[in-house]
Every structure is written in structure tokens, then in C-alpha cells.
């Protein structure tokens, strides 16, 4: 029986049409670049062509003399004295003394047309003194590497560390050496993953307006309008409440739109141009050169295993570069790397390293895919050496509720074992494989996140309901929040409209990140709906002349709670709404909190590949995602998240990489050369939703958006070894690399 038919709910678990569907298929939806205003100027950004250079002089006189040019800004137009991450954001927005990577903004110009702005940008003369640069993480951590920034190390970094180490972390438990001694097989391997971009279809775009009085507005494509407000305010020295930020529809974010890039530039240009609004739309090249990819990683992993597949100890050292600023997700990578396993002993060491590359941004389960690539690859290799079934070994070592996580705390309710059992019984595992074909399996984990959340709900005069949320809808959250609200109120899904609102309409909301929107905004919407229900019961009770406690809510109507409450016909939401003006005024609900009860999500992927021994090309034949969703509110969207994560992971595994020349310049800054998977590269990605309800959510929701990108990297590496007999420990596993490995294996 299909999962949907088993649902105990009226609406939760069904698959209604998405509320934004018509707008998107008709082109009516307004994305960042679709916003225009009367009197608007266009902005263009001058970017460093050098990976590392001192900015000797900027001369904008020729640009300023060009008709139609209304403003030029450099770092001199930004306030001084910022510290910590605010300084990092400002420095990344506009270079100060040095350009720190190819594509780093050094000046910006606003003019009356996009072409004129671009022309003016070309006329801005920047004199550079080129400095030594470093790109690769293993080069950057060398003691003699070019120093990106003196004093960048925070208090976690021990004295005597290499100069580009910005953060250091070490944690663990038990006695790893004793664990390795108890093992029948101990293996230690090194792995590397490349930085990859989130690859959202919609480039960054914004329209900013800022007056001399410090009051401003911004329309922007973002995952978090309050983050944009806070960061722009900090970088420009504004009062946050004076800046009103409205999010557009969003064509993908995946973590990359949780921070600022050119948004402060549009505001700074606007202020200098007398308050005229300034629109900036990035090209794809700008997106790839100057907006956050994820980090690249170099990792050493050691695991001990008994001959029957029990893991006795684990040791990992991860080095990650996240560009010219601290922030590589090495801590998250280490936390997640061994999370699916119950480990008697473990040691984790991590270095966050600076390099001359763009400031990394969050990318779907930041860090977890890299850690999984290393750990899940080594476990597969050891299973192969010991002649063990990799799925059985994963089951044998799987964590469950009450177990200590590899990173310390005790797990609450989790569904890893249920997920692995679902994989075990899936028909894909029985599919026969032909020559040059192989099957790979890997697990993945993401914590999920809560965060500041504020939601308002209002009953309309006709009994329909509007819900205002602060989390932009990047994966179907409007539909899922409408379903949960309608389920709670006992009304139709179509009678609820969920609006993503601007910063002036609600309290602070964290972005849609950390797989939190359906969990956190959904939980808040349910609480707000319950408040409205309580008020509607009170209004009905007043009409009936009975105590409010004697009224209950069922099927979208107030009803006497029992025979002793009196005999009154149900009073529906439409009737209560129609007369609310004369029974006490508007009826609404509101909830704000940092919701407790986040539920973590485990997943397991199985991939069948065929490797062409003549070209090294890997074809994905079959792909299965199994993941614990807690409760799938709108299963189609959950499946979409599973598929999207897998597709991005496949790209990361097989093709995507930043390619830098010896000069430190990015050589593949367009999608023709930066190869994301397209539909013809992929089979239909099959999904199976496991539901181990999260006790911390009224409907059992766990975030599902991020875990799915974690297993593909190792699952495909494991499948390639099964198909071609070569173990790939460095990404991407592109045809030339796989072919070289095959040739090397043939030559012995």
C-alpha cells in the first residue's frame, strides 16, 4: 500500500498542487532580476583579475566623466572599525588593501543603463601589485605558504600552527589506539574533494535603495531576508530597522543565498546616487568567481574493524579551505563523518585553512558530504577486503536511540536502522548487473537546525486563512505549511495561503537553511493555528452563553464539548469569521520562538553504475535514495528534496570542480565548463521515504533538505570500484581520472 494511504491524517501526507506552480510555469513568478523601479540605475562591479594582489591605486575619473554614470564606490565608501565576521563580510563585499581571490570586488559603479554601467566599470583603472598566492588546501597549510592574512587565527588555534590555519578543532572519546589493537584489519587512507558551487539556476540579483537619512529598501533573491538586513546594516553602518528587505521568488539557493555578496554595493551606490534605486544582477561568471562555493577538503581517515565487521576505532584528520576567510565547515564535516556508526573510540582533528579563493558559503549539509566520502569509502574498501556485505556491516554498527554519537552527545529518536532495513528489502538490490557494472552503497547524516522563527496567522472575513512566514520557499515549504495549518484548523488546503513576507512584517527569522523551514515555520504555524482555534472557540462560547472550556474544535467548527455543554449546532470557521468584527475584532494567531525538538535525518543511497573501460566515463544506471523524513507532510516535495540532493551529489562526485590556472585564476567560470549534471545525465532517481516520527514536532517532521547530498559521493566511488576495480580517492571522478586509474591498474 502506498505510504499516503496509510496516513492517519486528512491532509498531511497528501500531494496537492503546489501553490506557486501556476506562477512558475506561466513565467509570472517574480525572481530577483524581475524587480524594477522608476528612476532605477544599474550597477556593475569591478573585480580583481588576480588571486592575490595589493591594490595600489584606483582611478575612477574616466568612469565618472562618462555620461549616465551616477556613482562609483570603493572600500573608502564603507565604514571602518568592523571586527570579526562583520569585517569578513565587508572585506568580501569590497576589497580593502588587498584583493584576496580572482573575482574579488574592488569597485562598483551605477549608471542609467546596464551597458553604460559595464562600460564605466571597464574605465575604472586599478593598479595592482601582484602577490604570491595559494589555491590548494594542502599547499595553503604548509608553514611557508603565502600568508593570506596575519592574525586570522582565532583562539582555538594552538601557537606554532601554520600561518593560514584560522581555526582548529579536536574531539573524541575512548582509546583509539586500544581500539586499533583490537581490530583484525586497520586501514588508513587519504582523500580529497574539490570545492563545488551550489549551482542554483538563478544568479544573485537585487535592487537596493538607500537615502541620505539611512532609510532603505531592498528586493533580493535570498534564503533569508533578515540575514540580508543584518549583514547589510553591519557592513554599511545602518540601523537594521531602517532597512526593509523583501525576498523575491528564489531559483535555488542550497545554502549559497544565506549571506551577502553585492547587496551592500547596490545600497552604497544608491546612497551615493542621491537615493535612486540600483539594480545589480550577477552574470554566471560572477556567480562562479565571486560567490560562495563549498570548501575543498583533504582528509586522512583510519579505521579498525574486526573480521566480522565490527568497527573498533576511528581516527580522522580533515583539512579544509573555505577561501580567504575563516568558515570552512570542517567542524560539521567531522561531526557527521562517523555519525552513522557506534564507535567504541574515536579521534577527530580539523583545520580550517585560508587560501586565495572565494569566501565559502553554506552548501547543503555543509561539510557532511566530504566527511562521508572519506569514511564511507574506507568502510566499503575494508568490507571488500574482509569479504563482508557493506549493508550488513552498516547495520551491525548502526547507531540507534540512546547510543552515544561519534561526536559526543546521546542520540534521541533516529531512524538509521529503519532506513538501512528499507534499503535491504528494496528490489533494486536484487537487480542483476552486467559487465563493467557495479553497485555502491553509502550512508549519510545531517543534524538539521531550528533557529529564530516568527509566524503570524490571520483569519479572513470569509473564513479562509493567511499565514505569514519569514522563511523563503525554496523547496515546497508553502505547500507543507499550508497542509499543516489546514490539518490543524480542519479546513481545506486550498483555503490557506502562505505568504513569505518582508522584514517589516514579522520578528526576526533565520533563513531557510539547515532543513528548518517545514520543521520550524511549520511548528510555529501549527501553534499559531491553535491560538486562533482557542479564540474562535471563545467567540462561539460567548455566542452560546457557555464557558469557553465547554467548547471544542473539530472539522473546522466550534462545537459543544459534550452533552453537558448544551445543544448547539457547530459554528463553522466561515460563520465565526463573518461576524468577527462584531465579536471582538480580528482573529489571528502568532508564534515566535527558537523551536525545540529538531530531529536528525539519516539516509542511505544505492547506486548502480557502468564504467566504460575505454573512456573512463561513468554512467548512472540506477539510483535509489532511502531517507528518514520523520513524517512526510507533502511526499512529492520530500521526494524532490531526496532527488535534488542526489543529483547535486552526483555532479560533485563525477564532474564538478573549480579549475584554477597557475596564475590562480578560475578557468571554468561558465556552466559550459563547470559541468553540473543535466537531465540526460541521470536516470529517474528512485526514492523511498522512511517515517520514524520526530517526537519534537506536532506531525513528526524531520528536515529532509540536506542529508540527500551526503551519500552520493562515496556511493558512486564504491560503485566505480565494483564496476572497474579502481578505488577513486579524489574528486571529481571524471572520465580522464577514472581512465588513468584503470590504465594504472592494468599496468600493475
Amino acid at each position, binding site marked *: 500500500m502506498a505510504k499516503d494511504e496509510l496516513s492517519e491524517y486528512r491532509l498531511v501526507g497528501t500531494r496537492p498542487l503546489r501553490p506557486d506552480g501556476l506562477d512558475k510555469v506561466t513565467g509570472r513568478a517574480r525572481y530577483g532580476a524581475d524587480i524594477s523601479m522608476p528612476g532605477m540605475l544599474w550597477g556593475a562591479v569591478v573585480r580583481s583579475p588576480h588571486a592575490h594582489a595589493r591594490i595600489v591605486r584606483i582611478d575612477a575619473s574616466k568612469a565618472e566623466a562618462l555620461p549616465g554614470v551616477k556613482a562609483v564606490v570603493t572600500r573608502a565608501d564603507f565604514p571602518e572599525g568592523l571586527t570579526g565576521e562583520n569585517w569578513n563580510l565587508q572585506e568580501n563585499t569590497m576589497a580593502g588593501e588587498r584583493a584576496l581571490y580572482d573575482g574579488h570586488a574592488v569597485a562598483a559603479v551605477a549608471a542609467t543603463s546596464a551597458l553604460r554601467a559595464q562600460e564605466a566599470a571597464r574605465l575604472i583603472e586599478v593598479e595592482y601589485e601582484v602577490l604570491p598566492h595559494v589555491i590548494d588546501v594542502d599547499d595553503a597549510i604548509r608553514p611557508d605558504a603565502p600568508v593570506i592574512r596575519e592574525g586570522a587565527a*582565532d*583562539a*582555538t588555534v594552538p601557537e606554532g600552527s601554520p600561518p593560514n590555519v584560522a581555526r582548529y578543532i579536536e*574531539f573524541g572519546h575512548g582509546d583509539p589506539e586500544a581500539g586499533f589493537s583490537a581490530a583484525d584489519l586497520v586501514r588508513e587512507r587519504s582523500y580529497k574533494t574539490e570545492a563545488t558551487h551550489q549551482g542554483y539556476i538563478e544568479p544573485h540579483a537585487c535592487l537596493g535603495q538607500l537615502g541620505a537619512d539611512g532609510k532603505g529598501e531592498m528586493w533580493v533573491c535570498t534564503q533569508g531576508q533578515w540575514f540580508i538586513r543584518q549583514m547589510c546594516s553591519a557592513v554599511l553602518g545602518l540601523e537594521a530597522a531602517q532597512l526593509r528587505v523583501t525576498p523575491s521568488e528564489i531559483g535555488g539557493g542550497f545554502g549559497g543565498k*544565506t549571506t551577502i555578496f553585492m547587496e551592500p554595493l547596490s545600497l552604497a551606490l544608491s546612497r551615493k546616487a542621491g537615493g535612486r534605486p540600483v539594480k545589480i544582477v550577477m552574470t554566471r561568471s560572477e556567480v562562479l568567481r565571486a560567490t560562495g562555493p563549498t570548501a575543498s577538503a583533504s582528509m586522512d581517515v583510519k579505521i579498525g574493524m574486526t573480521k566480522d565487521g565490527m568497527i573498533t576505532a576511528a581516527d580522522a584528520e580533515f583539512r579544509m579551505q573555505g577561501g580567504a576567510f575563516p568558515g570552512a565547515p570542517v567542524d560539521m564535516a567531522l561531526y557527521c563523518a562517523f555519525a552513522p556508526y557506534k564507535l567504541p573510540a574515536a579521534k577527530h582533528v580539523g583545520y580550517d585553512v585560508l587560501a586565495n579563493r572565494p569566501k565559502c558559503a553554506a552548501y547543503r*549539509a555543509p561539510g557532511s558530504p566530504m566527511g562521508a566520502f572519506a569514511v564511507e569509502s574506507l568502510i566499503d574498501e575494508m568490507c571488500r577486503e574482509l569479504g563482508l556485505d557493506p549493508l550488513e556491516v552498516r547495520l551491525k554498527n548502526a547507531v540507534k536511540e540512546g547510543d552515544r*554519537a561519534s561526536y*559526543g552527545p546521546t542520540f534521541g529518536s533516529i531512524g538509521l536502522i529503519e532506513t538501512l532495513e528499507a534499503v535491504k528489502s528494496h528490489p533494486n538490490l536484487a537487480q542483476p548487473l552486467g559487465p563493467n557494472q557495479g553497485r555502491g552503497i553509502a550512508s549519510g547524516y545531517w*543534524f538539521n537546525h531550528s533557529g529564530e522563527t516568527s509566524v503570524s496567522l490571520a483569519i479572513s472575513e470569509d473564513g479562509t486563512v493567511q499565514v505569514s512566514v519569514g522563511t523563503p520557499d525554496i523547496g515546497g515549504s508553502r505547500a507543507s505549511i499550508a497542509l499543516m495549518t489546514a490539518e490543524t484548523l480542519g479546513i481545506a488546503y486550498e483555503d490557506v495561503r502562505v505568504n513569505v513576507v518582508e522584514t517589516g512584517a514579522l520578528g526576526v527569522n533565520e533563513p531557510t537553511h539547515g532543513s528548518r523551514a517545514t520543521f520550524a515555520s511549520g511548528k510555529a504555524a501549527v501553534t499559531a493555528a491553535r491560538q486562533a482555534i482557542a479564540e474562535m472557540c471563545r467567540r462561539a462560547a460567548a455566542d452560546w452563553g457557555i464557558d469557553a472550556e465547554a467548547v471544542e474544535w473539530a472539522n473546522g467548527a466550534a462545537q459543544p464539548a459534550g452533552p453537558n455543554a448544551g445543544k448547539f449546532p457547530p459554528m463553522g470557521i466561515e460563520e465565526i469569521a463573518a461576524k468577527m468584527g462584531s465579536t471582538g475584532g480580528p482573529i489571528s494567531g502568532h508564534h515566535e520562538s527558537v523551536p525545540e*525538538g529538531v530531529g536528525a535525518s539519516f539516509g542511505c543511497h544505492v547506486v548502480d553504475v557502468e564504467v566504460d573501460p575505454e573512456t573512463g566515463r561513468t554512467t548512472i544506471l540506477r539510483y535509489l535514495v532511502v531517507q528518514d523524513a520523520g513524517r512526510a507532510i507533502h511526499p512529492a516535495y520530500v521526494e524532490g528534496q531526496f532527488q535534488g540532493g542526489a543529483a547535486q551529489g552526483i555532479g560533485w562526485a563525477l564532474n564538478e570542480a573549480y579549475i584554477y590556472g597557475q596564475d590562480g585564476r578560475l578557468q571554468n567560470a561558465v556552466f559550459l565548463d563547470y559541468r553540473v549534471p543535466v537531465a540526460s545525465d541521470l536516470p529517474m532517481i528512485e526514492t523511498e521515504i522512511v517515517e520514524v516520527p520526530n517526537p519534537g514536532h506536532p506531525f513528526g517532521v524531520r528536515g529532509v533538505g540536506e542529508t540527500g547530498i551526503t551519500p552520493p559521493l562515496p556511493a558512486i566511488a564504491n560503485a566505480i570500484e565494483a564496476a572497474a576495480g579502481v578505488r577513486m580517492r579524489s574528486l571529481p571522478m571524471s572520465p580522464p581520472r577514472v581512465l588513468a586509474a584503470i590504465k594504472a591498474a592494468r599496468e600493475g
Partner: protein
Amino acid sequence: MVMVNLWSSLSRFTGGETAVEVEAATVAGLLDGLKAAYPGLAPILDAGVSVVIDGEVATGRHASVADAGEVFLMQRMKGG
């Protein structure tokens, strides 16, 4: 007293200890207590950490640790 499990590289600020006791009823009290007892931790705690109480990330400074069975200090959690 609450036993707080630290990540091990913080032990250089706590005389080699990876688990330390502080007198605290809330997360705020716990963090203040740690800073008072081990001043070297202050910049790290001020930069932002996650306090995990009985397996769940505390959602605020007022969260109670009085009856906590297990408290871990972790790097600040975030997501994409």
C-alpha cells in the same frame, strides 16, 4: 554542579580537562561559569557555541541545565 563535556582541544584552557564541573542552572549560567573558571575559553564561547543538553541543541540562554543528564559543548551548528 553540572558536568560539561568540552571538545578536547579546549583542554589546553582547562588544565588538560575535557570535562569540567560548573555551578549553573541555565545555559547562560553555564557559559558564564566556564568563562569565570577558565578565562581562556571566553573568546571561543563568545564567538558562539552550541550547548547540547541530553542530545538536543539548547535553543536559548535560559534553557535549564539543572536536571541535565549530559551536557556537551559543540561548535555552533548551522546548515545550508
